[in-house]
C-alpha cells in the first residue's frame, strides 16, 4: 500500500511534469533553466492561486493538460489501491493455515530489515566517496593533481571568462588551505583556553548550583545554528574588529579572517569544554586524592597530576575540534570573504575550502567545467583531511578511555 502511495508522488514528478512541460514546448514556449518555476506557475494557476489572465496561450494549454492528467491519475490510483488491497487480502487469506510458521517468517524478514538499515551508514559513506572521487577525477583530467595541491594562485573565474576549458584557469589550492588553517588557528586560540579552563573549573571547582547554570549555557552555545554565528560575525564582530584595529592604527578588511576565526572559536568552546569535561571526570578519584593528601593545592593537583593524565584525551578533543573548524562552512561564507589571498595577516580577507565549495556550487552548475568540478576536488580533500583527523582523534580517545576503565 505504501509503495502505491509513493508511486503516486513519483508519477507526479516523472509522468505529469514532463508531459506538461512538453505541452508547454509544443505551444511555443521554450523550457528554460527555470522549468521548475514555470511548472510551479502552471500548478498555481490550475489550483486557482494565481490569476490566469497574464499567462500566455501555451501556459493555459499546459494548465488544462495538467488538470486532465491529474484527474486521470487520481482515478487510476484509486483503482490501483483497490486492486492491490483486495488481492493482498485474498493472498493472505489463502495462506492462513495451522502449518504456516508465520512468526518465524516475519521475524526472518524483520532481522533482514534491521541488518539492511544498519548498512545505510556504509552506503552513505560509499556514495560520498563515489561522488567525490568520480567528479574529482574528472577535474584532475583538466587540472593536474600537483598543480591543484601546490599551486599558489586560485581564481576559478578566469577559466570561465576566457572560455578556455582548463587550460589557463588558476586552480592552485594553497591559498585556500592557508586561509582555512589561519582561521582554524585563530579559532583554536580562542576555543582551547576558554573551553579547557571552563571544563576544569566546572569539573573540579564549581558548586553544583553553578554547574546547573553553566552547563546549559554552554549547551545553548553549542545549539546555535552556524548561520546565526555567521550573521553575528558579519553584523557585530567584523565592525568591532575594524574599529579596534583602527584604534591601534591598523586597517582591517571588513571581512577579516580575525572576525570569522573569533566567532568560530566561540562556536567550538562548548565542543572542547564538554569533551574535556568527560575526559577529566574519567580520571580516577584515587589520583586526585593521592595528590591532595601529599599537601598539593587543588591547582597543583590539576596542573601536575590531572592534566598530564588527561592530556591524550584532551589532545583527541582538540583534534576533533580542529576537524570541525576546518569543515565549518557558514561562518566563513558569511564573514571571511571570497578573496583568495595568500597571507598570514589576520586582518586581511581570506577564503577557505568550504567557502569556495559553497560559492562555486550555489547558483548554476555546469558539470563539464573545471570550475564546478573543482568544488568536488576541494570536497574530496576536505573529506580526506577530516577523516584522518577524526580517525586519529578517536583512536587517541579510545586508547585513553581503555586505560582508566
Amino acid at each position, binding site marked *: 500500500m505504501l509503495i502505491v502511495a509513493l508511486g503516486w508522488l513519483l508519477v*507526479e*514528478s516523472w509522468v505529469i511534469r514532463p508531459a506538461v512541460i512538453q505541452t508547454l514546448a509544443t505551444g511555443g514556449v521554450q523550457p528554460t533553466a527555470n522549468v521548475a518555476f514555470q511548472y*510551479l506557475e502552471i500548478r*498555481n494557476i490550475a489550483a486557482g*492561486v494565481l*490569476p*490566469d*489572465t497574464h499567462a500566455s496561450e501555451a501556459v493555459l494549454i499546459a494548465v488544462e493538460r495538467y488538470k486532465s492528467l491529474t484527474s486521470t491519475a487520481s482515478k487510476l490510483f484509486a483503482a490501483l489501491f483497490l486492486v492491490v488491497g483486495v488481492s493482498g487480502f485474498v493472498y493472505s487469506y489463502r495462506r492462513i493455515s495451522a502449518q504456516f510458521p508465520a512468526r518465524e517468517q516475519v*521475524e526472518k524478514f*524483520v532481522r533482514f530489515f534491521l*541488518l539492511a*538499515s*544498519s548498512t*545505510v*551508514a*556504509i552506503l*552513505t559513506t560509499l*556514495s*560520498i566517496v563515489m561522488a*567525490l572521487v568520480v*567528479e574529482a577525477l574528472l577535474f584532475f583530467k583538466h587540472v593536474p593533481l600537483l598543480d591543484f595541491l601546490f599551486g599558489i594562485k586560485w581564481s576559478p573565474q578566469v577559466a570561465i571568462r576566457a572560455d578556455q576549458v582548463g587550460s589557463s584557469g588558476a586552480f592552485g589550492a594553497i591559498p585556500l588551505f592557508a586561509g582555512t588553517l589561519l582561521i582554524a588557528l585563530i579559532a583554536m586560540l580562542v576555543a582551547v*583556553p*576558554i573551553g*579547557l*579552563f*571552563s571544563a576544569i573549573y566546572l569539573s573540579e*571547582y564549581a558548586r553544583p548550583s553553578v554547574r546547573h547554570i553553566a552547563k546549559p*549555557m*554552554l549547551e545553548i*552555545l553549542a*545549539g*546555535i*545554528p*552556524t*548561520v*546565526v*554565528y*555567521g*550573521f*553575528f560575525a558579519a553584523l*557585530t564582530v567584523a565592525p568591532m574588529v575594524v574599529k579596534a584595529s583602527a584604534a591601534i592604527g591598523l586597517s582591517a578588511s571588513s571581512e577579516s579572517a580575525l572576525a570569522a576565526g573569533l566567532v568560530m572559536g566561540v562556536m567550538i*568552546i*562548548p565542543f572542547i569544554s564538554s569533551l574535556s569535561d568527560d575526559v577529566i571526570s574519567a580520571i580516577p578519584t584515587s589520583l586526585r586524592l593521592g595528590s591532595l593528601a601529599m599537601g598539593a*593545592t*587543588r591547582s*597543583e593537583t590539576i596542573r601536575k597530576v590531572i592534566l598530564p593524565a588527561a592530556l591524550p584525551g584532551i589532545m583527541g578533543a582538540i583534534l576533533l575540534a580542529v*576537524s570541525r573548524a576546518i*569543515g565549518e*562552512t*557558514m561562518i566563513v561564507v558569511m564573514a571571511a570573504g571570497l578573496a583568495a589571498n595568500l597571507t598570514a595577516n589576520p586582518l586581511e580577507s581570506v577564503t577557505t575550502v*568550504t567557502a569556495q565549495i*559553497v560559492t562555486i*556550487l*550555489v547558483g548554476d552548475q555546469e558539470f563539464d567545467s573545471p570550475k564546478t568540478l573543482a568544488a568536488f576536488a576541494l570536497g574530496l580533500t576536505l*573529506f580526506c583531511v*577530516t*577523516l584522518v583527523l*577524526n*580517525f586519529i582523534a*578517536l583512536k587517541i580517545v579510545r586508547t585513553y578511555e581503555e586505560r582508566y576503565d
Partner: protein
Amino acid sequence: MLTTDKKRLQKRHRAETRFRAYGVLSLMAAAGILFTLIYSIVSSGYTAFYRTTLLLDIELNAERIDVTPPYSRNALMQGRYSSLVKSALYAQFPEVTDRRARRELSSLLSPGAELAVRDYLIDHPDSLGTTIALEVPMSSDFDQLYKEHLPRSGENIRFSGQQLQWFDRLLEEGRIAYRFNTQFLFGGDSRYPELAGIAGAVAGSFFALLVCFLLSFPLGIAAATYLEEFAPKTRLTRIIEANINNLAAVPSVIFGLLGLAIFLNVFGLPRSTPLVGGIVLSLMTLPTIIIATRASIRSVSPGIRQAGLAMGASPVQVVFHHVLPVAMPGTLTGTIIGLAQALGETAPLLMIGMVAFIANVPTTPMDPSAALPVQIFLWAESAERGFVEKTSAAIMVIMMFLIMMNLLAVIIRTRTQGKSKVE
C-alpha cells in the same frame, strides 16, 4: 626559615587563586559572548515584528480599478489599484503637483500598499464604490526611518528634505501608525523587506524535517537495534560501527556535495525541494539517532530481557515488545536533538538549490522552497537595510523553535527519570 616557608605558601595560594580565576573568567567570557550575541540579535530584530503603516482614505472606484460586474474574486485579483492608492496619497498633499515631486511622494508607500487595498476589497466586496480608511504599509526606507534605523541627516542620506517634511507632517496628523506585522509571520518571501515573510521558509523547514524524521527515525532505530541486539561480533559489524562514528563527524558541506551529485544528478530528484533537503538531512541525523538509541538500549536492564526470554518470547519479540518501549524516551530525546541540529543546518541545503528566491508558501515536500536557516542566509546577504532586522527576527524565530525542541527533549528526559525513581 619560617618566613620563607610562609612566603612560599602564600605564593602557592596566590597561584591557586589565579588558577581558579582563570576558570571563572573563561566561563564568564563564554556567558558574556552568549549574552552579546543574544542582545545584538534581539535588539536589532524585535522591530521586524512591527511595521509602519500609513492611514489613507481610499476611494474604491470600480471604474478606476477596471473591474466590471460580477465582481468575482478572480476579477478583483486582476484589478488596478496602484492609481487609487497614489491619488489617495496625493490628496493628502494637494500642493504637490509637480510630476517629479509626486514620484518622490509616492516612494513613501510600499508596493504592498496596492496589494493591501486589493486584499481588503476581496474580503469586503460590498465596499466597492465607497471610500474607506485603510492602513497601508509604508516603504522600507520610511519604515526604517520611523524605527530610527536610518539617519535623518549626514552622509549617504536616503531621503530628500521634502520627503522628510512630508513624513513629519503625516506623523503630526497621526496618520502614521506602528502595527504588528502579521505579514512577516504568515507571508512568503519578497524582494521588498517590508513585505517579506518567513512562512514559506518555516513550511519548507517543516517539510524537510518531516521527510528527515520519517526516514531517519525508523532507520536509526532499526540500525541501532541490530547493532546492539543481534549483530554478531564480525568484521562487518566493526566496519559499520566505525562508519557511523565517522559519519557523525563528516563536515556538512560534504553531505551537500553528496546530495548534489547523487540525489540530483544521478537520481534526478527535483532541485530546491524539501524532499531532497530532508533526505540529505536524514543522512546527517542518522548517526546521532543511532548513537543515542544504542546508548539507551544498552541501559535497559538485562532483567527485562531475561524475563521476556524466560516467558518463551522470541528474541525479536523481546526486543520489540519490551526493550524498545523501555528505551523509547532516550531514543526520542536523541531524535529530537538530531532534528534540532538538522533544523539549523544550512550548507547542505545551499548546495541542493534551496536558495532560490521563492515567494510561494510550499504546500507539499515536492514544491521548490527555502528553509529557515537558508532564508536567514539569503536575507543576511542582501544589501537592503530593511533586511537586517528581518534576518535578526528570523533568527529569533528559528531559535524559538530550537528552544522548544530542546525543552521537549528535556521534559521527556526528566519525566522518565522521575518515573524510574518511583518504580
